[in-house]
């Protein structure tokens, strides 16, 4: 049973960064604050596309905005990436240890093959 109430693009950081254009936006914002116009110029996306993706990133807290006069400045909110960071780290540590043991085993098996 799928849970219909779940709205993936607006509630899940994983889903928000799964889209390539949104990762590009995060990379662009990684170097500092930017306006929609600057992001349009830098990424070669249309203004509606940039605005739509910024909306998704804001909804999951990955991007925040501040208004300065008539301009709206967008910036990245790093700590919101933590769930992804933690998840990948946990998964990776398990597999690094597991495959290091497999490595040792393969060395041992080959040594057995080599000795008559």
């Amino acid at each position, binding site marked *: *049973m*799928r849970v219909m109430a779940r709205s*993936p693009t607006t509630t*899940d950081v*994983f*889903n928000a*960064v*799964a889209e390539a254009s949104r*990762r590009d936006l*995060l*990379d662009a914002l*990684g170097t500092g604050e930017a306006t929609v116009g600057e992001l349009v110029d830098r990424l070669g996306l249309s203004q509606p596309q940039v605005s739509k993706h910024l909306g998704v990133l804001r909804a999951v807290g990955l991007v925040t905005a501040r208004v300065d006069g008539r301009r709206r400045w967008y910036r*990245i*909110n*790093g*700590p919101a*990436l*933590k769930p*992804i*960071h*933690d*998840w*990948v*780290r*946990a*998964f*990776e*540590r*398990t*597999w*690094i*240890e*597991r*495959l*290091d*043991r*497999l*490595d*040792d*085993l*393969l*060395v041992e*098996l*080959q040594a057995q093959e080599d000795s008559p």
Partner: protein
Amino acid sequence: MTEKTENRHGSATVTLPSDTEVLITRAFDAPAGLVYTAYTTPELVKRWWGFDTSEWLVCEIDLRVGGGWRFVTRDDGVEVAFHGDYKELDEPHRLVSTEVYEGIPDAEENGALDIVTFDEVDGVTTMTILVQFQNKEGRDGMLESGMESGMQIGYDRMEDLLREMQ
């Protein structure tokens, strides 16, 4: 990358090709046939698949398409169980199986598909494991299978980004 080295410890990498996929990559100084054997033989799987402290309760492999596998270990008193079915077997190049972590609700529905490839070049075999979760519940469920924090993030540049921002 394919040169033989003294020690490749710590060299497995994990990347996230999409929000429901994980790709694990690791090279071994061994022929593909041997890596495949170590991956599919119960007595050998017991030597590497669990944690150092794991007590093995079940390690069954019925290596044929449609056959099943089931691994159950006890870690710190907690039983951790996985099982699946083999979908494709192309020794020693490729193996496709399902993977179900029994510790989450609706385990079967939230299972994953594992696509494993063994690519040998000049005596070095690069193994890739692509884990395709059916949904985010399955992906999140993996967190509960006894994993702890590790060392690096897969998304290009994202770790640096995170460090800069904190």
